[in-house]
């Protein structure tokens, strides 16, 4: 009866080019990453060059995105701002992925009691939104990148652990793992050498999505004023400055915002495209 494949699922796509999402995702995020990279060496204008006479100019040939309320070139601001936003997202994602995967593997590899405890704790961690933690930390540590990174990681770790636990458990139940155990391989060996390579694809997809989420959260926190403090600039902060001027200078809001959308979209698409490639059935597990 299994011959009746009702969905007509195509066989696994063999090249990245066959998944339009992945392709689009790479293009968009590549664009953003390139601009960030370039910003370390060159920007069209001096990002902190205040020039009050030229304030709030709409986009034109010399100022591609126009100028902000202090006359600074908006495009340069965005370029430099990306350094901060992406940096925060990157660190948080790395922490989340590394610690979360370890935690998830530990939970999968331990007995049912301990595993259940870890899962419960993770659930509580997931229930605490980053913004809440960020604001709590802002109260004590003060606003700034450190608070944001800790807050975002605080959420990423249990989310990753949660995603990893299920598949890890499934793999542990497979025959070849049992074989390894009877051969006397240590638990840690099994987890790292056998389980991990098999769940790596899932972790990679998860990482991509988390990076996108990290950008969103960082931008939101900066918008609220709790993120990076001046003189460090970030996309969220630019938008915060633009808020009172939304009527006079709509481009001031729209262009940086569109930039955020493009980056988040790009990394989300990469995650999506990869997950479709790796397992056509997995696309329902939208995590973030």
């Amino acid at each position, binding site marked *: *009866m299994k*011959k*009746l*494949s*009702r969905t*007509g699922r195509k066989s696994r796509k063999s090249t990245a080019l066959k998944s339009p999402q992945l392709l689009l995702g790479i293009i968009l995020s590549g664009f953003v990453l390139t601009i960030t990279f370039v910003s370390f060496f060159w920007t069209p204008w001096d990002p902190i060059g205040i020039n009050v006479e030229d304030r709030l100019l709409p986009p034109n040939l010399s100022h591609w995105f126009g100028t902000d309320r202090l006359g600074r070139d908006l495009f340069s601001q965005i370029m430099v701002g990306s350094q901060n936003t992406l940096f925060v997202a990157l660190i948080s994602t790395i922490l989340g992925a590394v610690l979360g995967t370890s935690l998830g593997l530990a939970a999968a590899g331990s007995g049912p009691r301990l595993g259940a405890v870890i899962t419960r704790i993770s659930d509580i961690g997931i229930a605490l939104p980053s913004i809440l933690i960020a604001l709590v930390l802002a109260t004590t540590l003060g606003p700034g990148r450190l608070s944001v990174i800790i807050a975002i990681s605080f959420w990423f770790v249990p989310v990753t652990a949660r995603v990893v636990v299920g598949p890890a458990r499934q793999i542990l139940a497979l025959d070849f793992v049992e074989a390894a155990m009877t051969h006397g391989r240590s638990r840690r060996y099994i987890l790292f050498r056998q389980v991990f390579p098999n769940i790596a694809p899932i972790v990679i997809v998860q990482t991509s999505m988390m990076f996108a989420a990290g950008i969103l959260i960082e931008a939101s926190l900066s918008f609220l004023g709790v993120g990076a403090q001046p003189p460090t600039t970030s996309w969220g902060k630019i938008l915060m400055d633009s808020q009172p001027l939304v009527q006079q200078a709509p481009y001031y809001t729209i262009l940086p915002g569109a930039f955020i959308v493009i980056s988040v979209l790009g990394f989300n698409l990469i995650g999506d495209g990869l997950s479709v490639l790796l397992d056509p059935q997995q696309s329902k597990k939208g995590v973030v």
Partner: protein
Amino acid sequence: MLEINNLRISIAGKTLVKIDHLSATPGERLGLVGESGSGKTLTVLSILGLLPEMMDVEGSIVFAGKELLGKSDKELAKIRGRDIAMVFQDPSRSLNPTMKIGRQIGESLRLHTDLSKSDIKQKVIELMHGVQLQDPEKLVTRYPHELSGGQQQRVMIAMAISCKPSLLIADEPTTALDVTVQQEILKLLLRLSNESNMGVIFVSHNLGVVQAVSERIAVMHNGEIVELGPTSQIIDSPTVAYTKELIGANPSIPSEQELNRLLGTRFPTSRGE
């Protein structure tokens, strides 16, 4: 009543089923037997137009004088459940897990008749009695997972016969069930077919089971009918090598008398033999 001519079912250019001619008279019990992949399920699915979209179908399937192939989904929907009904293999998956049994059984009646709600309710209880389900009043509010496999299949049968179809297609209806329950379901099908002169197309890979129910048997292999004839003839004097293999693989096929003893009574065929 049913005439299949020049049926070709293919996917991406590859032919899966090739039947030149197959027919069934009203009230006849026809058995379709073959191993997995022989095309028997595809064939019966094509009668009701339930094939997956990506498959191509050509040929002619005429039922009660009307050509079925080429009809739209909406037109076929009028025939499905009312004139032709189907019972599937795995009842636990073929029933909606979140809908009460009573409602599922009454669905065809709701779709094809004008009966009032209370009338339908009554009919459902009657149907459940008819398929020998104990305590229908209690079962009506239960969900599929609360029933045993045998009960679930009886529910499927009740659903199928609710509008008194002239043809019932049973695709491996007993395969997922225990042996003892299998016999009961077979007896039930025979009785129902007899009582209302309802034709049955019984599909299975199990020759013994097919033999118990059918008057005529079509043997399928690789998408084609390799042998066709009255049951006794196929069993006692098969002509094609494949059929012989099939019989050989089912050593416990009982003789006609043994069958009657096992099943309890002698069921007359539609031709009154």
